[in-house]
């Protein structure tokens, strides 16, 4: 579906956002994980035809996105949710979605109305549609963002950091919605929160400093950390000696640390790695 070969992007001012990215993205949910500033948003924007690459090739559904024709062909099947979600404050959700549907080429008013109602149902916003967007909470705005991306039943959904700033309940709801979407189309989800993709992604890539550190199945990323993840119970000081502390759990008398690395000298219990462990292990070793 999407073939990316040796993609580079250098912004004016010599900022190298992408330094030779190779990716193959097929159907279903694809996760793009990496820290902030890794180049995820640049990559998403290039795929959406918003930013022109400096070098390399990108082909979406067999079309070269850098040509005007390819760009238009991609946009015709694209649903895009940017990281910075700006909405017209004085429009209602319905008016906004109607506007975007128009921009997506739905000139017939009746069809537009039907599409808008459908997406509102899918994101469960049917009750609040006639209030102005400025009155919406962050989570509701995000849902409007997803709704507009779904207009026109796009084959390709690109979603950039959709869960940032949402409360846990909203985050779970959004993740489930995206997983449902991925059942029948290609969804590219970029995030710095590993949890966002742990359940739903068939394939993922880890990107940092403009380069892809890993592409493959979730279980392969998990496998990398196998044998390197431990829990250490300590009532005193934190374990150190070059260990990375992944998380801490306050028990009755002690604190349980989940660590990555070699636990020399500590009484450590090996545990099965999670996706987050795999990710952190990879990031550590990448330097």
């Amino acid at each position, binding site marked *: *579906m999407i073939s990316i070969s040796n993609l580079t992007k250098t912004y004016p001012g010599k900022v190298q956002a992408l330094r030779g990215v190779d990716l193959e993205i097929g159907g279903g949910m694809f996760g793009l994980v990496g820290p902030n500033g890794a180049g995820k948003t640049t990559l998403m924007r290039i795929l959406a035809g918003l930013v022109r690459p400096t070098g390399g090739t990108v082909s979406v559904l067999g079309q070269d996105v850098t040509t005007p024709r390819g760009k238009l062909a991609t946009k015709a099947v694209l649903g895009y949710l940017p990281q910075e979600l700006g909405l017209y404050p004085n429009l209602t959700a319905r008016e906004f979605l109607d506007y975007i549907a128009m921009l997506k080429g739905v000139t017939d008013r009746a069809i537009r109305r039907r599409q808008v109602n459908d997406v509102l149902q899918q994101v469960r916003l049917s009750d609040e549609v006639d209030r102005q967007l400025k009155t919406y909470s962050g989570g509701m705005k995000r849902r409007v963002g997803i709704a507009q991306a779904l207009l026109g039943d796009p084959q390709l959904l690109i979603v950039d950091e959709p869960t940032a700033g949402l409360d846990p309940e909203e985050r779970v709801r959004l993740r489930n919605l995206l997983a449902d979407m991925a059942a029948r189309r290609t969804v590219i989800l970029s995030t710095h929160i590993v949890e966002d993709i742990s359940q739903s992604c068939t394939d993922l890539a880890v990107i940092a400093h403009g380069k892809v550190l890993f592409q493959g199945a979730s279980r392969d990323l998990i496998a990398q950390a196998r044998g390197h993840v431990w829990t250490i119970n300590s009532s005193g000081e934190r374990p150190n000696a070059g260990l990375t502390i992944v998380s801490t759990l306050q028990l009755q008398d002690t604190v349980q640390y989940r660590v990555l690395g070699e636990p020399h000298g500590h009484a450590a219990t090996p545990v099965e790695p999670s996706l987050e462990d795999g990710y952190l292990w990879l990031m550590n070793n990448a330097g």
Partner: protein
Amino acid sequence: MVADTFTMNIRSGPRHDLSAPTDAQLARRVQRGHTSDLAPLVERHHSPLLGFLYRLTGGDRPLAEDLTQETFLRALRSIQQYQTSRPFKPWLYAIAVNVARDHFKRAETRHAVTLTDDELLALPDPIDLEETIEIDGPRLALAISALPGQQREAILLRYYQDLSLAEMASVLSIPIGTVKSRLSLGLRQLRLSLKDEAVCHTSMNSARN
């Protein structure tokens, strides 16, 4: 309205096989104004559609060609209403059936006198099982053409276009049960008219001898 009535592409098999796009995929692209995808779509359906309309009109080629073009035009004009999650062929044939019906209504074409469904059902079953019906292509064609409209449509869709019962229900906008009854009535009517043919034929032969 359940979420899955919103157009979803339910695909089995390779999802993005660029070498053989499905009818629905082509139709979707035409919906979005890609004229280049019109040709492959038309090429796939022109011949079978012409065949269907040819037989439906009882072998009138010029009329069939007109109706075929009219079908495609109507399909194009209502292409935005086509839901890409539904199969394309039944949608197209539904339009074809309506185009043909509209024509017959206008032309007030009269068919051979046939029995009503009730009369047909009331007939006793012909006893002479052993009598093989000597029939050939043209006579069969005539017999099918003489069927009442609804049965003719059903027989043609089933035996020439190879549509499934479910597809036919979709094309004709009727329940599957009605499809079945039209088929069985059509077959009954066919047998009757074929037998009459055969009887005529044999009696003519015997008269000659």
